[in-house]
């Protein structure tokens, strides 16, 4: 009993430590006048208003930018979940020629800083493929997230090979094995990778900003960054405006997580091989 209480206390302290900055962000975003003192951490009823949010709403077209963000992010998530899973599975459980090279390439891609590639990548996509000012141009460099492929591979590795051998003996094709045997067992990993793949393009500013100048194609992160760099200076509470923007950007990601996290439950892996 004592141990459970101790653990809960530690968790609570930890949770508070993690939540405090976010709480402070929300309080700050609701402040009409900026209050950077220690006392400002507590919400003052007289200083609270949704003013910062309404200013954002007035400055950027929330509907259009949200749509663009969704298209961009959905494209990336789709590409990663479909092709990345296939590649991850192949890298983990199948033996074929070129597997090592592909694995090395995947690792290499993750290690390379984006800033090194950005201008040649831009030239490639815009001049080489003519994709300026398009959703495809935005999506392409992120289409299959290499970190996600790595994650998929690691989790497919955790599945015992006996399960697959059993299925192969039963005459199932590789694709069938993937779909019916492997995927259900790594569902939490799939969700983790999907959530992670979602965050990248959702928060991504530099690439969409480079690729498209058209207002009607800019995703939310870019619109908010533009708003912060210009209008915010003349807003009543500039820092509050930044915080409000960040809250707006973070809210869908948090909501998604809340929705998905219930799938992180045990899959009773052991029972698959018995008998």
């Amino acid at each position, binding site marked *: 009993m004592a141990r459970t209480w101790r653990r809960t206390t530690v968790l609570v302290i930890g949770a508070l430590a993690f939540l405090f900055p976010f709480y402070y962000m929300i309080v700050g975003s609701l402040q009409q006048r*900026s209050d*950077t003192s220690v006392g400002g951490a507590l919400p003052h009823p007289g200083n609270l208003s949704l003013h910062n949010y309404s200013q954002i709403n007035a400055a950027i077209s929330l509907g259009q930018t949200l749509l663009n963000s969704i298209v961009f992010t959905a494209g990336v998530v789709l590409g990663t979940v479909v092709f990345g899973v296939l590649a991850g599975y192949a890298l983990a459980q199948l033996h074929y020629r*070129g597997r*090592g*090279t592909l694995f090395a390439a995947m690792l290499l891609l993750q290690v390379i800083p984006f800033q090194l590639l*950005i*201008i040649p990548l*831009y*030239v490639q996509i*815009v*001049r*080489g493929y003519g994709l*300026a000012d398009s959703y495809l141009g935005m999506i392409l460099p992120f289409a299959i997230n290499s970190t996600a492929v790595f994650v998929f591979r690691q989790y497919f590795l955790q599945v015992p090979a006996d399960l697959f051998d059993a299925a192969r003996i039963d005459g199932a094709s590789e694709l069938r094995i993937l779909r019916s045997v492997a995927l259900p067992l790594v569902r939490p990993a799939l969700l983790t990778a999907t959530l992670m793949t979602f965050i990248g393009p959702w928060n991504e500013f*530099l690439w969409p*900003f*480079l690729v498209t*100048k*058209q*207002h009607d194609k800019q995703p939310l992160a870019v619109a908010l*960054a*533009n708003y912060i*760099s*210009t*209008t915010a*200076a*003349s807003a*009543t509470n*500039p*820092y509050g405006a*930044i915080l409000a923007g960040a809250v707006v950007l973070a809210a869908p990601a948090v909501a998604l997580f809340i929705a998905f996290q219930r799938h992180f439950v045990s899959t009773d892996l052991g029972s698959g091989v018995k008998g």
Partner: protein
Amino acid sequence: MRSRIQLAAVTILTLTATVACGGSGTSPSSGEAATARGPINIWYSNNAQEVAWGKQMVEAWNSAHPTESVSAQEIPAGQTSEAVISASITAGNAPCLIYNTSPAAVPNFQAQGGLVSLGDFPDGASYIGTRTGGTAEQYKSPDGTFYQLPWKSNPVMIFYNKAVFTKAGISTTDPPLSSYEDFLATAKKLVSSGAAKYAIYPSPSSQFFQPWFDFYPMYAAESGGKQLVENKKATFDSDAGKAVAGFWQQLYAQNLAGKEAYTGDSFADGTAAMASVGPWAIAAYKGKVDWGVASVPTRAGGSGDQAATFSDAKNVAMYTACKNRGTAWDFLKFSTSAEQDGKLLEMTGQMPLRQNLEQQYAAYFTANPQYKTFAAKTAHVVEVPNVPASVEMWQAFRDAWSKSVIFGKEAPDKALSEAAAKINGLVK
């Protein structure tokens, strides 16, 4: 194993071949393009007031020139815009005109082959000279031609918070800020009286352009209008430069200026009693701070209105990806005409780099006296030197400044000498 090596070798060779062949496509040749006419594309800053000005200007042109329509897009001002412009030069899809070209970036863009020489147009140099006067000379490239049109400036001055000054018991009509001694004493009084946390709080960031708001305005004033580098030699390793560095070092050492990152605007928040900014800030601080303005201090004080300062100019450049340069040049002249410059002044409060500014728009300045001080300053602005490796030069300066003046790890005199030696090597 051997086959894997073979595969790797083939891949590397193919990649190298692709790269070595380079990209395809060419820019229009300057001769024919200089007279070509047709629709053009422009970019301007996404600052709300400039956008408003830009839109009305484009509409006015488009209604008069239906076959040479102008389409405009916004790009944010700031350091990211340089990356965007550089990338679009490389990709060949830069617009005809960018109303947001930083003079410090011009040498790089020129080296990339991205800028059109305005001397290609028969009235290029003469138009610029007539509009801007003597100040225009600073904007010529080392080869003597204009690759940018000096457009607008935001002369940097000292804004002070009248409420904070009153609280500290300092006069708000004639605050003692003109000499270093006076400025330091005022700063001490402001902080020790508790009226503000810091006297002044320029961003201590190590980005290459930060010296433009702490060192450079005061250096311009103290040295009588010298640029950082003149005739391929650093000028700041001098009495004037050392005086400015010593002054700022005092401010930092006595904690009168902040050394940490600050989110938000320290002047607007009341954290700092003063700020060194240009007239664009008037709109930003309206209703938030009751401000007054003074010239940047000099060591002896007393030069007041005649003292030079940093221009913080933003210019317009024409880019080589432009096909219809004839239209672009005419549009450029239209957008910097007396009428449009007047509208720019009215709508944004920024100073067009036009000679006899006060006289030309006397009505405006009578109606808006708070801008008058800035208008007078435009005749005395100093620009960043137009030299190759200009960004690298400013970065070297900032690194030395950061180390010695802000963090006190080295004597400023020594740091400035080292920086000067390094910079001499860069700009030769």
